[in-house]
């Protein structure tokens, strides 16, 4: 095992034919970190991971392990463990032989191979299944074999490509905890690919958000949750309300915006010239229903659809001016109810709209976004 103190990706790019799958990824991974690569389907997450693993040659850029350049090494000489989305367990080998594979490739003494394999089996709680073939295991068990196989030889970096996406919701939560537990107890350095923002936020120390092959933002879960760098990231991080608007006035970081007949106050993120087009982003849970007294950013609306979600209700409401609002509330509301909505200006983020085709696509006939 070759531990490192830093792994540096320097302008890593990958093209397929004429199409960029990954563009100039710069990222420094410190040892012991848990990094999540996050983004919608097709944004280049697997491409980035495969480039790191050595399974895909780069078209540009370099990868450095401390002072050693490793992007020219074949995968078997990088010593990174990888968990594949499809598990890729060897179907003709038993669970034990699958897990021991990496150790055998390193030609460790028999006794040590046996001991460390048993240890890994215990770690992922598969003691009762060691002599089975992968085809005889459930999805969750296969997943655990794949993880054990990738960490048993103490790789300097563990790469995971959407390891939980084939599991059901309950198992996904359990395995999520298990992955974080393994990361901590084994002192691993992990790069984890997912399209599930909740999973990324709960697991990672740092998140890298990709969109169309480009890094949008790198930051802690907290930064990404509260301060997405642009409205695309906000969209992805659960800001379901994205409204198109126009700047009326900017005062420091406080912006006043006109959006479908409402005057809204919010936090300006980025450069907002007067009268420029903006996107207003609000999380459903940051919209209050019938708040007390005089409230900022008030709108009156009619509840249209209500979904029961345990303690909370998820609802869609339409303002008098026709704007669609997604909200979550603990109050009992029902379709047809007239409500007064309000938003804390600090939780209402105002982004430059940018001139992308998507902005137009998202705007429906009523002028509301999505």
């Amino acid at each position: 095992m070759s531990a490192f103190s830093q792994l540096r990706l320097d302008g890593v790019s990958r093209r397929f034919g004429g199409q960029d799958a990954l563009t100039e990824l710069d990222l420094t991974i410190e040892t012991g970190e848990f990094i999540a690569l996050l983004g919608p389907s097709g944004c280049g997450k697997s491409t980035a991971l495969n480039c790191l693993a050595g399974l895909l040659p780069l078209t540009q850029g370099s990868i450095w392990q401390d002072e050693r350049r490793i992007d020219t090494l074949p995968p078997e000489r990088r010593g990174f463990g990888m968990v594949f989305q499809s598990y890729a367990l060897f179907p003709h080998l038993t669970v034990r032989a699958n897990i021991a594979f990496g150790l055998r490739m390193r030609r460790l003494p028999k006794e040590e191979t046996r001991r460390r394999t048993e240890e890994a089996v215990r770690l992922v709680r598969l003691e009762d299944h060691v002599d089975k073939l992968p085809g005889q295991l459930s999805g969750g068990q296969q997943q655990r074999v794949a993880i054990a196989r990738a960490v048993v030889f103490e790789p300097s970096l563990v790469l995971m490509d959407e390891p939980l996406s084939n599991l059901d919701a309950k198992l996904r939560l359990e395995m999520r905890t298990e992955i974080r537990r393994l990361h901590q107890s084994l002192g691993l350095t992990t790069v984890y690919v997912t399209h599930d923002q909740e999973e990324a936020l709960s697991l990672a120390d740092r998140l890298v958000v990709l969109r169309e092959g480009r890094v949008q933002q790198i930051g802690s879960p907290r930064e990404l949750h509260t301060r997405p760098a642009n409205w695309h990231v906000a969209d992805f991080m659960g800001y379901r309300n994205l409204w198109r608007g126009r700047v009326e006035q900017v005062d420091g970081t406080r912006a006043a915006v006109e959006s479908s007949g409402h005057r809204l106050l919010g936090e300006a993120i980025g450069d907002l010239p007067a009268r420029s087009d903006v996107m207003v982003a609000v999380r459903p849970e940051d919209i209050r229903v019938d708040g007390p007294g005089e409230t900022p950013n008030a709108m009156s609306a009619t509840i249209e659809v209500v979904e029961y979600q345990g303690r909370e209700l998820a609802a869609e409401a339409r303002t008098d001016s026709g704007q669609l609002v997604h909200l979550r509330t603990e109050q009992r509301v029902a379709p047809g109810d007239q409500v007064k909505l309000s938003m804390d200006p600090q939780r209402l983020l105002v982004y430059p709209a940018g001139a992308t085709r998507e902005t137009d696509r998202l705007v429906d006939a009523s002028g509301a976004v999505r």
Partner: protein
Amino acid sequence: MSGSGPGRPLAHWQHRLAERGIDRQLWLLVPALVFVIALFLYPFFYGLTLSFQPTDGGPLSDYARFFSDSYERGTIWITLRIALPAALLNVLAAVPIAYRMRGRFRGKRLVTTLLVVPITLGTVLTAQGLLNFLGPTGWFNRILLAGNLVDEPVRLTHNYWGVFFSLVITGFPFAFLLVLSYLSGIDPTLERAAATLGADWRRRFTMITLPLLMPGLATTFCLTFVLAFSVFPSAVLVGNPAGETRVISLAAYQAAYEQYDYPYASAIAMIMGFVELVIIALVLAARSRFYTGSTGGKG
């Protein structure tokens, strides 16, 4: 099955039959069954009964005749000596080429076509080509002679080697196509996984791909062996049908169409089938020791 305790009614009879693989889809097998009976079972049993009715002597006397005559008995060995190495070489040569070609690359269709062309040529045309190329006055010998590498032409036709080459040329495309499809049935992510675990290409091949491919190779071997075992035209055209390459099918042919002794010819055919069966049984027995389940690929 569990769950059918004393008090509970049994599952519906249709479910119980379906559990044993008996359902309406069985009807799909009817055409195949008809073909098998008409084209295989009937001639087989006809030949079998005929072989026990020799023109003179007891029911087994034709078999005894075959085995007591060393010239006749020797045809088994002669045929095996040609067919086994040819089948083995076909499979072994197909593996590396198919392994290299399993991915997608430019010109794959062209290369595949070139490799498969011999199938369309047929044995006779292949024999013709072999005579032209490898015969005493063929290009091959002319090149050797011109280069002063040999003093007199190397004999590569009208003997064992002529038949052997012809079997390789006609059998290889089958082996190649089969191995290629078995290979593309193996999920390529498995090798990628092995690579990240530290296996270089040699060990990826020997520890992952080859074990998963073995059952396919065994099947391929059986098929090319059967093709080679019933070799007939090339044994006559590029072989030495009176001696070195007097294969068993030739013995049967001579019994039937030169001596008009159909019972004896049937007996030889039965022996031929039995030898093939023994080899195939051995190979399949070895095959069952390998993992034969799903390999996750698209094939």
